[in-house]
């Protein structure tokens, strides 16, 4: 009887979104509307929209470059180059939904071209800020940190296509559909790359 009551409550909860879920949905809608209007202004040649685009994305693109293994200086240069290329190809931008993946695709191509020219250059790691986890203590904390370090190394050892998939989806937080467009492949191909990457990481991280 008690179980029945619980399951009914759960159902009721899923039918009526919580305040947090409503807030999240509202934010998402707001972002999508902002992107739509930004794209419309960009397509009409508005320079202030271009400046807004920089403010919205320059940190993300810089971090994307860093996570793809470029050092600080090169990442800054490649971020600038990505935006320059974006101004140049503004006519190819179709709608607001495509903005994220369009910009990431340009950045990915710029990065790929760089690696093609500098094949023998070593990957640069990213020195993350220390974020002590206060919920864990002593041994747990050390183990946890070691595991993250292992994972970081394993990600940087992945072949470039697999690394790009992991970075786009798990680190840059793009949806599968957006990340697939950004990587320039079909969704199925992207999912299979992601699975291969996860399998490799699971083998390497204990």
């Amino acid at each position, binding site marked *: 009887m008690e179980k029945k009551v619980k399951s009914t409550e759960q159902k009721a909860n899923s039918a009526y979104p919580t305040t947090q879920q409503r807030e999240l949905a509202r934010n998402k809608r707001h972002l999508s509307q902002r992107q739509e209007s930004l794209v419309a202004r*960009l*397509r*009409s*040649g*508005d*320079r202030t929209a*271009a*400046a807004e685009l*920089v*403010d919205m994305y*320059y*940190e993300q693109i*810089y*971090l994307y470059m*860093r*996570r793809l293994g470029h050092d*600080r200086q090169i990442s*800054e240069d490649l*971020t*600038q180059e990505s*935006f*320059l290329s974006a*101004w*140049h190809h*503004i*006519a*190819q*931008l179709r709608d607001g939904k495509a903005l994220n993946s369009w910009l990431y695709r340009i950045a990915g191509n710029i990065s790929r071209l760089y690696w093609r020219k500098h094949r023998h250059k070593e990957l640069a790691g*990213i*020195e*993350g*800020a220390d*974020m002590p986890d206060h919920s864990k203590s002593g041994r747990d904390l050390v183990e946890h940190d070691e*595991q*993250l370090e292992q*994972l*970081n190394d394993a*990600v940087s050892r992945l072949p470039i296509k697999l690394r790009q998939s*992991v970075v786009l989806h*798990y*680190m*840059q*937080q793009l949806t599968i559909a957006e990340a697939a467009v950004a990587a320039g492949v079909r969704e199925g191909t992207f999912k299979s790359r992601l699975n291969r990457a*996860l399998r490799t*990481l*699971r083998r390497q*991280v*204990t």
Partner: protein
Amino acid sequence: MKEKRLKERLNELAERAKEPVRSDLAEQIKQQIPHRLERHKIGWDTVNIIIDLRMSKSVAAAAIIITLILLANLFGGRDSTDGGIVRDSILLIKYWGGAERSEVSAVRSKYEHLLHRGEEVTWYGDRIDPKDRSAVLMQHKRRDGRYCVTFVDGRERDVSAEELVKLLTRMLQNKAK
């Protein structure tokens, strides 16, 4: 490691693998925004497809023009059996070959026409450098014994036999250099 845990760790790693971006990077990028952003133009989708296919600009333009000619021939009522499409394409290719080449081709047609009429003509096109604008492309002996020479740039000049020899000698010397 279990897949769910691995995904959690990856999200955590994303939070950790962050670093502050240089504060003036955004300003630096904004300074490079072009004064005139390229507007979206209707009809550019075809060109974008061609760019995506990584064709060169001239090949892409030729492809578009040939397609238009083919469509005009198909729907414009022209008889395609008279070789119109082929002739148009050859003209286009000649056009893309560059101006010098088209001038040489025009003189070559004239040479063939004179030869067909039984005139005394000599063709030097195979032996000259087409970039040398003053090189003699063709000589045509007139009935009065003088020669009409045609240069690479299309100019024509009436010369005597002695002058012709001098011109040809100079041309061969230039080529030898």
